[in-house]
């Protein structure tokens, strides 16, 4: 029997194409992995009017080491979505501060019309808790809006 090329030109059984059927599974797996592992800020925003500042800088600390303290116009204090009495702030913050190995940063989110006495009381509570790093959270003020005032 005469074979073309003497029988050496055998057809390869391996496919010459990249197997594309599993790529979709891989991509969806990655998509779902990132969707599940992404953690967003834990506490809800309180309705406050933010103060504005030009010199505001980004807080240079990991998200888990930032504790937001919301201070409303009436002087009510919220941490982790729960209301607190002003006098209880220090006893709540101190263990958190110790657990974070003194890396905790407090972000004071106060309404712009809050009377300063409440801010001062809050600062005293934080000093009592031994916290040193505090940030007055603000929105960035554009230089244009400043000139208009």
């Amino acid at each position, binding site marked *: 029997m005469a074979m073309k090329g003497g029988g050496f030109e055998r057809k390869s059984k391996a496919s010459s194409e990249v197997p594309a059927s599993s790529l979709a599974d891989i991509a969806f797996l990655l998509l779902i992995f990132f969707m599940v592992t992404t953690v967003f800020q834990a506490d809800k925003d309180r309705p406050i009017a933010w*103060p504005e500042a030009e010199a505001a800088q980004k807080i240079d600390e990991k998200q888990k080491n930032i504790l937001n303290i919301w201070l409303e116009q009436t002087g009510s204090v919220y941490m982790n979505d729960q209301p607190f009495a002003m006098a209880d702030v220090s006893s709540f913050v101190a263990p958190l501060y110790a657990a974070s190995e003194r890396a905790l940063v407090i972000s004071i989110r106060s309404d712009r*019309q809050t009377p300063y006495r409440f801010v001062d009381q809050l600062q005293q509570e934080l000093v009592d808790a031994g*916290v040193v790093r505090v940030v007055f959270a603000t929105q960035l003020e554009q230089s244009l809006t400043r000139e208009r005032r």
Partner: protein
Amino acid sequence: MAILNNRKTKVSDEVPTSSMADIAFLLLIFFLVTTTFPKDKGLAIVLPEPGETLEVSQRNILHILIQPGGVVVVRRGENPQEQQLRPDQIEGLWRHEVSQNENLIAAVKTHPDAAYEHMVDVLDALQSANADKISLQVLEQ
């Protein structure tokens, strides 16, 4: 000749899956690129340690008193002379004062009834002028 009705259809009856991978990767990359985590911005200060007090010469203190209406009164050390300013004038004032005395400390004293935003305005002006020695206090009557 074959029966005409029994013709093979040329349209595939399967969902085309070869482009699914492209769609999924496109979505993945789109979300990876567009996701931005909002980083909080703010004016950072360092609070004193509990029980920490410092004796400071009156000569090195610039008293900045914030009144309830937002008017800022500036006093230098023990000098009884007062100067009324707006918060946005503090930046220039601080730059001028600190060029004459490097050890100057800004003592920001806010009236208990003054709005928080006035204190933030003054703190903003001081930090814009690169002031690092700032003391926040409440104004005692």
